[in-house]
Structures are given as structure tokens and as C-alpha cells.
């Protein structure tokens, strides 16, 4: 009855060897390919550095103005604009300007990457059930695996720095935009698509003329989620060398600085709220036809 009392396990020695073998294999891989991978991501790094410096070196009134314009374009609501400006002024006044700009930079770049990568994947998933079946579990893994776990191979490959941080943020923030692009396209009215077919539309004409335009509200909900999730990753990403609001939060945790932690944490929250309102506004503006329905 020994079988039932004690769970049959691999021997300690074998287990240790197995783990060692995996580690060694991956380490060898990163030794031989790390350089190539780093080179591959180099343009990204350059862009991120450039953008961060741009935000940090531009005169602050210019940034505030740009943010205000952006808020107006997105939300079309003076309250949001005033709130946004006030929030940025407060952030600057409390000495968090540089960190906020760094965070803004990485969140913007991460969002752009997620859009550029995520929307095509979503389109491919919507086009084929098989692709959907293959990618969905991958997205599930990306969303549920603790972020610390995938930090390990990323750091082994690329070391500590901005690019691994960016990749970690993207892994975490990519799934919603992929899912919602796929969903949005699949939810497009079957009859409208049939009409497009009946008039002889090709696949691309249907995709760009009917499916994507009608899926935009969902795609934008995905963009919104992606922004929120990349902001949420900022603190964790700062553990592997990403500058920004996450760094002081980490310092506050290890040193028990309550005020420092609260202030920077709140700055992240405020950024999240602002981004949320603005990106939702953009989504709504895209649906002119849903305003004042049935005038007749």
C-alpha cells in the first residue's frame, strides 16, 4: 500500500538533473543566440530611448499642452481636459515628472507594439477557426502565468534593461487586444457580410470595408484594456530595469516609505484613469452612426 501513502515522485537526484538540464539548455541557447536577439530588438531600444528622452527633455508646458489636446480629441469633454491638466500639474509639482514621462514612454511604446502585433493576430484568428483554436490557449497562458515566471527566461536572454522590461509588459498586455479584435470581427452581422459577398467584395474589401470598421468599438475596448494592463505592469517591469513610476514604488516597499509609495502609486492610478477616459472617447467617436439613432 506504499503506492497510496506516498506520491510516486521522480528521485531527488533525477529531478535535480532534469532541472539542471533544462537550465543548461536554455543558458546555452541564450549564450549562442542572445546577441542576435539583442540586435533584433535594438531598433526598438533606440526608439524607446529616443521617445523617453523626447518626453523628458521637452519643456513641460509643451507636454501638458499636448496631453490636453490629446484629451480633447479623445474625450471631447472639457471636464476630462481640465482634470488631465490638473493631474499632470500636480504630478510635476510633487516631483514625479521625470518618472511619469518614463512611464508614459514605455506604456505608449508597449501599446503601439501590442496594436501592431495584436490586431493582425486577431484578424488571423477571426479568419480561421483552426488558428483561433491554436492561439486561444496561448493567450490563456500569457494572461494567467505569474509575470515573475516569464521574467526569468526574458532576463536570461536579454539581461536587465528596457527591452526585456518592454517585452514583459507586452506579453502581459497583448492578450486583450488580440481577443477583442477576434471577437469584434466574429460578431459582425452575418447578413451584412453576406451582402458584401453578394456584391462581389473580395476578402480584403470585406476586411477593411466592413469587418474592421464594424469591429472598431471592440478593437478599441481591446486597446483600452491593453493600456490599462501595461500600466499595471509598470511596477513589476521596474524590477528588471525599466525606469519610471515603478522604481520609487519598489524602493518604498523595501524601505517602508509610506508617502513615497502612495504618491507614486496614485500617479499610476491617475494616469490609468486619464488614459482610460481618452481611449474610450476615441472608441466612441468612431461610431458616429450610433449617435441619435432613429430620428425618424
Amino acid at each position, binding site marked *: 500500500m506504499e503506492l497510496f501513502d506516498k506520491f510516486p515522485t521522480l528521485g531527488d537526484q533525477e529531478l535535480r538533473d532534469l532541472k539542471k538540464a533544462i537550465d543548461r539548455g536554455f543558458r546555452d541557447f541564450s549564450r549562442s543566440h542572445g546577441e542576435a536577439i539583442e540586435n533584433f530588438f535594438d531598433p526598438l531600444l533606440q526608439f524607446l530611448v529616443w521617445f523617453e528622452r523626447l518626453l523628458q527633455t521637452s519643456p513641460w508646458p509643451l507636454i501638458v499642452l499636448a496631453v490636453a489636446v490629446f484629451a480633447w480629441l479623445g474625450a471631447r469633454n472639457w471636464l476630462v481636459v481640465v482634470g488631465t491638466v490638473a493631474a499632470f500639474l500636480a504630478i510635476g509639482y510633487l516631483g514625479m515628472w521625470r518618472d511619469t514621462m518614463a512611464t508614459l514612454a514605455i506604456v505608449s511604446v508597449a501599446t503601439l507594439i501590442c496594436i501592431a502585433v495584436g490586431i493582425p493576430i486577431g484578424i488571423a484568428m477571426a479568419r480561421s477557426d483552426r488558428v483561433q483554436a491554436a492561439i486561444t490557449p496561448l493567450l490563456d497562458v500569457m494572461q494567467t502565468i505569474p509575470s515573475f515566471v516569464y521574467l526569468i527566461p526574458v532576463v536570461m536572454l536579454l539581461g536587465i534593461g528596457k527591452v526585456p522590461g518592454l517585452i514583459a509588459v507586452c506579453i502581459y498586455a497583448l492578450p486583450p487586444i488580440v481577443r477583442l479584435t477576434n471577437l469584434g470581427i466574429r460578431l459582425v*452581422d452575418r*447578413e*451584412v457580410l*453576406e*451582402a*458584401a*459577398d*453578394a*456584391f*462581389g*467584395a*473580395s476578402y480584403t*474589401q470585406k476586411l477593411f*470595408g*466592413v469587418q474592421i*470598421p*464594424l469591429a472598431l468599438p471592440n478593437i478599441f475596448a481591446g486597446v483600452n484594456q491593453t493600456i490599462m494592463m501595461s500600466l499595471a505592469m509598470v511596477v513589476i517591469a521596474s524590477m528588471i530595469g525599466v525606469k519610471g513610476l515603478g522604481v520609487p514604488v519598489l524602493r518604498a516597499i523595501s524601505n517602508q516609505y509610506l508617502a513615497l509609495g502612495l504618491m507614486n502609486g496614485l500617479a499610476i492610478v491617475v494616469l490609468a484613469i486619464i488614459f482610460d477616459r481618452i481611449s474610450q472617447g476615441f472608441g466612441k467617436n468612431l*461610431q*458616429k*452612426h*450610433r449617435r*441619435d*439613432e*432613429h*430620428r*425618424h
Partner: protein
Amino acid sequence: MSTDTDTKVAIRDLYKIFGPRAAVMTEHVRAGMSKDDLLDRHGHVVGLRAIDLDVTAHHIQVVMGLSGSGKSTLIRHINRLIEPTAGEVLVDGVDVLGMTQQELREFRRSKASMVFQRFALMPHRTVADNVAYGLRVQGIDRAESAERSRHWIDRVGLTGYEDYYTTQLSGGMQQRVGLARALATDAEILLMDEPFSALDPLIRTDMQDILLDLQSELHKTIVFITHDLEEALRLGNNIAILRDGEAVQIGTPQEIVMRPADDYVAEFIKDINRGRAIEVASIMESGHVNGAPEVDAGAVLDDALQSLIGAGAEVATVTRDGKPVGSVRLERIAAALARPD
């Protein structure tokens, strides 16, 4: 230019079975297995069975039948939105099923356009852009599309609504957009799947008027689906009646009304206003009486009755183009008006 008796669309021995092993199932259906039996025993649905139909050029071919009888399935074979399990669909003698994807797109762009029961308009486009859709798909530039779109918007009476979104319009107006969109491509064939069924009776009559008015000028070949016999009689040059995917009767409106092929068809026509549906020509006899009042062969019984009663006569002379072609007696009119059972 084709003459009036040319066949525009020919459907030959068409079968459609829905299900994963449709091809195998066709054998059972050919051997005469009923729709219910096929569903019970093999889990496949008969969509269409042995359909043979010739649609005459420039005519309105009506297809009627109860819900689920296969009307939508049939019309979608003409532009191959649905692939048949067996059979042929010839348009101007060309087999639609033999077309490549490219040829098929070309065919749909220029030869056959479609109007849908629930409009199927694009909510993100304005009325003008919806009407121009088929033209834009063909690659016609913005300016010309807009120009032609404006013309058709005017023809269906929607001038002034060009910049509205379709969700802002009533059902009747939306279907005018659907009609204009289909007409804008100048396709010779118009496929209309219950286009007016979702509309109120009054609006429906309006739309029928618009269609007849346009047809008197455009002479399209129209396949028109309805489950409303009044509509079928009003619009159709010819009517096909489907039951369980099978064409149980194909004929002119007068043939259908005067000689229903079976109880299913009889059930359809039992509630119609016979006085307004049956034409004198359908019941006239040969020979004529001098001095009797005259009625036109195309007049309906109600009108013939009116003339007879007005003249206090028992018999009328039936004329076609002013020439006498026969006669009709009062009691024959009365007999035709009585509902057969």
C-alpha cells in the same frame, strides 16, 4: 438584346442537402426519401430537391412557400452564395458553378445584385455610401460612384437623406436604400429575398408600386421571394411554389389560382380575394353575342361584374386589344368567385 421569351436563368435538377455527408444523402433523396425521414434517420436537412426552373428574361419570377420550404436557399444558388449538392445553375447559358472565384466575383459585381429581407445595410456608412457600395467594390472612383448613387437615391424617393446613417431611417426607407444599392450596379438580374416582408402592409404596397414602376422602365429579370400570395399575384409574371424544398407547382398567376396542383397550393390561395385576382381571360368561353357589353380579357372578375350589372346584361363580350375573342356569362363569373373546396 434578348427577346421576351429568352430564358435568363435556368436551374436544372438542383439538389441541396445540409449536413456533413450531403453527397451520399443525395442518393436517398433521389430515391424519394422525405425531408422528415432524412432528418430522423440520417440527421441531414433537405434544402432543395430536384428543382427545375426557367426564369424568363425581363420577367418577375416569384418564388413562394411556407417558412423553411427552401426559398432563401434557392435564390442563393443563383449567385452561388450557397453551393449546391447536385445540379446546374445557368445564367445566360453560362454555368455559375463552373466559375472561378474571380469570375464569380465579377458575376456578382455586374450581373446579379441582391436585396435582403432584413435590409443588410452597412450601419457605418451613410445612405449615399451604402448605395454606392457595389460600385466602390467594382473599383469605380468616388466621384462617379457618388454621382450614380445620387441618381438611384432619387429614383427610390430618398433625395435629401444622402448623408443620414441607415440606422436613422424607418424600415421602409431602409429597404429603399437596399433597392437603390441593388439597382446602382445596373445588374440585369435582381435577386430579392422577401424584400418587403418586414414592412407594414401600407408601406409594403408602396414598395410594390415603386418596384413595378421601376420595372416597367428597366425590364430587369427579377427573382422575387415572398410568402404573401397577394404580393405574388400582384408582382409575378410567373410563380413557383415550394414545399419542403420541392417545386410543387410552377405557372402563371392565373394558372395557380384556377388550377392549384394540390392541397398545399389550394391552401395558399384559399383566402385570396378571387374577384380581384382572377382575370376574365381565365374563364371566358368561345363565341360572342352581338350587342353585349364589352370587357377586356385582362380585367378582373370584380370589374367584369360591375360592367355586367351596370349594363343589366347576362353575358359580356371579351375583347383583347379591342377585338372580340370570346364571351363570359354572369353565372360563370359567380362560379369562379365562389371559393372551391
